[in-house]
């Protein structure tokens, strides 16, 4: 596949945190691609490294994080021409190269809309800031653009709302404003880190509809970080399942939901209550709890909780096998399939 189709290509990303003189590897050999104009869902429980992975790519992590990767390639498509950026070669996480990319090319929507906005500035000004910063637009023009964006995102009475302060907004509206901030410079790639976890289900449905629209109608590429398998089923084209810092399964939506292959993904799908379960039907449980990332045993991280664990699982790091084109699983059950990097 060429660089026109793939917008983000990550190979062997490793992120290590240093705390108390100990080094803890939170993200381990993570590789994935995001296809242009599609939505990739990164699923996993808290602490599986899904947020850290995305923050590593955006370089939002503190000084105690060490990021190493074979390649983090971002392919910008401007006027039919592809420009390649090698993010792993950018030294300064807050230098001009990185800052030029954030906003006009890739942007991020965070989990908590309440703390994503600065309470002392008007929302309109907060949205316009990126525009003024990146394009040098005049304030008046920027205001027009913001109004347009507010209308597009379904914020009612944009002319009035643009001069309001964040506290005058409800949670769902705040998240729309946060999305407006992320969208205002017309980026190609939007990374949404649990964008609806802090919101009610009816509001979640509104926001998800909005994001899906952006992807389908405007051709944006979306990375959705979530723990909710339901949202994945509704939003994603491709799914990346993570457990303890590793990608355990990667594939198209059908691959992951219909031909679920990794025992963890299977367990995850079956342990979540679903509406309309038959009476007396019991949920399956995953035994044990997630291990402490600071002292992991060798071998597969899921071995202790896995019903299909064998002795070989505990020996060494498990490679990834490609069981059908584009469907990759990190499990020894599939060792007859070709190994991939």
């Amino acid at each position, binding site marked *: 596949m060429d660089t026109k189709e793939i917008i983000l290509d990550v190979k062997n990303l490793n992120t290590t945190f240093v705390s108390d003189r100990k080094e803890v590897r939170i993200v381990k050999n993570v590789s994935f691609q995001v296809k242009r104009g599609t939505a990739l869902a990164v699923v996993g*429980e*808290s*602490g599986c490294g899904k947020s850290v992975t995305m923050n590593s790519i955006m370089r939002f992590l503190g000084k105690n994080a060490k990021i190493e990767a074979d390649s983090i390639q971002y392919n910008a498509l401007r006027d039919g021409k592809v420009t390649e950026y090698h993010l792993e070669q950018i030294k300064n996480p807050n230098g001009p190269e990185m800052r030029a990319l954030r906003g006009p090319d890739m942007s991020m929507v965070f989990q908590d809309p309440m703390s994503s906005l600065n309470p002392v500035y008007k929302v309109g000004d907060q949205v316009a800031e990126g525009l003024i910063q990146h394009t040098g637009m005049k304030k008046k023009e920027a205001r027009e653009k913001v109004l347009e964006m507010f209308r597009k995102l379904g914020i009612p009475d944009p002319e009035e709302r643009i001069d309001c302060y964040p506290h005058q907004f*409800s*949670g*769902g*509206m705040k998240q729309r404003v946060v999305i407006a901030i992320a969208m205002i410079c017309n980026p190609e790639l939007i990374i949404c880190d649990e964008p609806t976890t802090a919101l*009610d*289900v*009816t*509001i*979640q*449905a*509104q926001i*998800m*509809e909005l994001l899906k629209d952006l992807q389908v109608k405007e051709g944006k590429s979306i990375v959705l970080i979530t*723990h*909710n*398998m*339901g*949202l*994945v*089923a*509704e939003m994603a084209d491709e799914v990346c399942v993570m457990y303890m810092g590793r990608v355990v399964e990667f594939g198209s*939506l*059908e691959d992951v*939901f*219909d031909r679920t292959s990794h025992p963890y993904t299977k*367990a*995850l*799908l079956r*342990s*979540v*209550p*679903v*509406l*309309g*379960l038959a*009476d007396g039907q*019991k*949920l*399956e*449980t*995953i*035994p044990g*709890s*997630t291990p402490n990332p600071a002292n992991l045993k060798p071998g597969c991280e899921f071995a202790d909780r896995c019903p299909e664990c064998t002795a070989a699982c505990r020996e060494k790091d498990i490679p990834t096998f490609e069981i059908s084109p584009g469907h990759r699983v990190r499990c020894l059950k599939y060792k007859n399939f070709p190994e991939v990097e």
Partner: protein
Amino acid sequence: MNEKREVIFKIENLKTWFPITKGAFKKVVGHVKAVDDVSLEVYRGETLGIVGESGCGKSTFGKTIMMLEKATGGKVLFNYGGEFKDVTKFNKDEMFQFRRKVQMVFQDPYSALNPQKKIYTSFEEPLKVHGVKNQADREAVMQKVLKMVNIQPDYLMRYPHEFSGGQRQRLCIARALEVMPEVLICDEPVSALDVSIQAQVLNLMKDIQKEMNLTYLFIAHDLSVVQYMSDRIVVMYLGKIVEIADSRALYDEPLHPYTKALLSAIPVPDIHKTKKRQILEGEVPSPIHKPSGCAFHNRCPNCMEICKTVDPAMVHHGAEGHMVACHLYTQNEKQG
């Protein structure tokens, strides 16, 4: 279901209002009507799920029944061997005894255990307070409840921060069971837990219920979790009950437009079920300035003229025990 079920809680017109004060003299300028005129019955041994969005008053409702919040009006009647006593009128002593009958499991297991104390101390204190004088007796109880939640006794000697969220929530459940309550009010017991842990705790709670013949009041915002746990479900919106139904009936034929919207808003992890999404417009209004008439009318897809002025009453509709507060059904009733 015609068998007579024993009522354990009878809640009549319960109101919990929080005053909004202004100025130096704390003049009351209005009320947040967190729970506004709620009546329902809870049967012994059942799980009654209470579901609704944030701000609908479901947590306050639980806390009011637990008497952790003062009721502004109405009655909470508890069944003392066939005789109903009003909990809101209890004196200190009666209240203390009531605490042994009804216990609560809270949402956040991370702050539910005192971080400065060993689990042992946190477990011992309630027993001491409730008159178990002998240490051996106390430890016997502790052993028993720990066994129910599958936790090793040696864990007692540790501090809360050494445990994961799931373990802490299990410890919290065990502690609530120490006084052998009849009713357990569970306020969002799994919403702070990881998805892979939720099923563990939910199944555990189901097992314990069978073992001890407990009655659960299961409060949560996640309808799929509530549906999995409950026999009957109460749907709340802005401090009022909009629908009560058996768990299955609520899913199969929801009556209230809000319930329908709630059901359709929940994402289903199944890529072949393409369902028609009904997306609600707008947001939940603030409970300080509730809309007139039916509180839901400004978001309701089936809003009629009458909804804007008249607050609908609860009526029976369809299967037995299925009640709904909506003019769609009161109208029908009148016509028929």
